[in-house]
């Protein structure tokens, strides 16, 4: 195989990528009564995709990724309430503001160890949480931002109102998810994407082949923040509500769990993880509403101890 063929081969489309895309489309067509749950899964998947870019590709750990999710959520909700109700405008504003916040915060994660980064990212999310709490004239404080009314979704196929069953919402979320996924896919197969993996594996060598490590980290953190902001905007726009919950620690930790379940560094871990995580949560909490956290915790412990590879390939257990 020549180098040109080898490089093309690495970026080829896999059959299951197409299958996944079809499955997403089919879920909208075939499961209209579950649109609200599916919407929740798709938003979580997008949020996890954003974390995967910095964690799986660039190797930056974060326990405060909800900072960007929440910032996007409040930005989109405030645009709808104060400026104009068009969802696309709100989305663009949320993405832009989250990207700016990401660019500023990226300066905090350039130095230090993983532990430093865990604490710094956690701290940023806590600060934003408290700001949203205190600025109640703007954000509604602990009561949340009420009275967010979204306008119809303008598309080339016509204008669609957000319905109670969530079908418009889910379609909207799917479009944003697939667009972001496509951009992320281009990104990780580009020289830029490979340079992220390079600096994750060995920063000293990355600099020694002439890559500017800091410029890369700033860029990827900004892009990831923008995508997290898009996920947050979807959350606020499709629920018509933003509350302090969007900044909460459990959201940052939850998205990390999604990647632990789905795996990092291959782009689709967030989608698979979000599906498993949400369905598991739904199923267990329907079965035992009081103790679902226990079973979810047990599942995670087993998953990590046994290993994801072995858990999804049970037929390999008995091989010598």
């Amino acid at each position: 195989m020549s180098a040109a063929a080898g490089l093309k081969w690495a970026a080829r489309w896999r059959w299951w990528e197409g299958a996944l895309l079809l499955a997403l489309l089919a879920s909208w067509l075939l499961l209209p009564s579950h649109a609200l749950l599916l919407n929740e899964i798709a938003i979580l998947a997008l949020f996890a995709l954003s974390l995967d870019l910095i964690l799986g590709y660039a190797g930056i750990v974060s326990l405060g990724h909800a900072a960007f999710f929440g910032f996007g959520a409040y930005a989109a909700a405030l645009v709808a309430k104060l400026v104009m109700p068009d969802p696309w405008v709100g989305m663009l504003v949320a993405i832009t503001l989250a990207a700016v916040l990401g660019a500023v915060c990226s300066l905090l994660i350039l130095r230090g160890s993983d532990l430093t980064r865990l604490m710094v990212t956690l701290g940023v999310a806590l600060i934003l949480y408290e700001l949203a709490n205190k600025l109640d004239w703007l954000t509604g404080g602990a009561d949340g931002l009420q009275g967010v009314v979204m306008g119809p979704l303008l598309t080339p196929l016509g204008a669609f109102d957000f319905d109670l069953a969530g079908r418009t919402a889910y379609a909207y979320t799917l479009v944003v998810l697939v667009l972001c996924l496509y951009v992320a896919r281009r990104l990780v197969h580009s020289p830029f994407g490979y340079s992220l993996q390079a600096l994750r594996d060995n920063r000293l060598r990355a600099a020694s082949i002439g890559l500017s490590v800091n410029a890369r980290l700033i860029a990827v953190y900004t892009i990831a923040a923008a995508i997290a902001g898009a996920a947050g905007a979807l959350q606020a726009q499709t629920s018509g509500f933003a509350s302090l919950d969007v900044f909460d620690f459990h959201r940052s930790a939850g998205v990390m769990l999604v990647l632990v379940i789905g795996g990092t560094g291959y782009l689709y871990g967030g989608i698979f993880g979000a599906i498993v995580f949400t369905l598991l949560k739904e199923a267990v909490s329907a079965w035992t509403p009081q103790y679902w956290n226990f079973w979810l915790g047990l599942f995670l412990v087993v998953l990590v101890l046994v290993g994801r590879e072995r858990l999804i390939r049970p037929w390999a257990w008995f091989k010598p």
Partner: protein
Amino acid sequence: MTVVLETRGLLKRFGGITPTNDVSIQVERGARRALIGPNGAGKTTLINLLTGVLEPTAGTIWLDGQDITRLAPHKRVRRGIVRTFQINQLFSELTPLQSLALSVSARLGVSAQWWKPLGSDPRVAPICDTLLRQFHLDDVMNQQVKHLAYGKRRLLEIATALACEPRVLLLDEPVAGVPEGERQEIFDIVNALPAHVSVLLIEHDMDLVFNFAKSVTVLVNGAVFAEGDVESISNDPRVKAVYLGEGEVAHG
């Protein structure tokens, strides 16, 4: 002779230790220079100073007559100062092909492209093909580096540096851990570099040093102890006393 790389009074102190003590050397265009000295003489520290991994306590470093003492490491690489490491520093999750393609892309200034796939620049793949063949990596080019045997990883270490198209190549014990038979092969590739490329070599194997180098700088206790062509250094009784005369030369 045009001087490409030069240090003036370079000094590095770590607390009470001075691994680089008032080092002033000149590396000419096309030089094949060996840097030798007993263990702890400050050879690797000097390389770290030249590449910007360490910042000197005093003194300056000049490339093509420009002061690069405070230049960031990655910018020095873009100006042509490229090194290999004594201990392999590789991208363990990437494949040899991806590692080389990325290095070549960085060299060509297209490593920040984020929309087109790696290797979409038509200049990248042919250079990778040549390097993979030269370093016998073509059969493993699509395996992750972490799964490669040590010998292959050592070859990739050198190939990655050459992918950056150095003008000044700093080789820090390039054949450490490479089987006897393959050592000469690596040196043959280095020897085949264009005549304008300057090579500075740290090596303990004196046969290789005297085969490869045209001039030698001897470091002892962080300072330049002797300098000259291979002939005069190998016959210098003082050098023999501190280094060559110590019998079996230790590696490390």
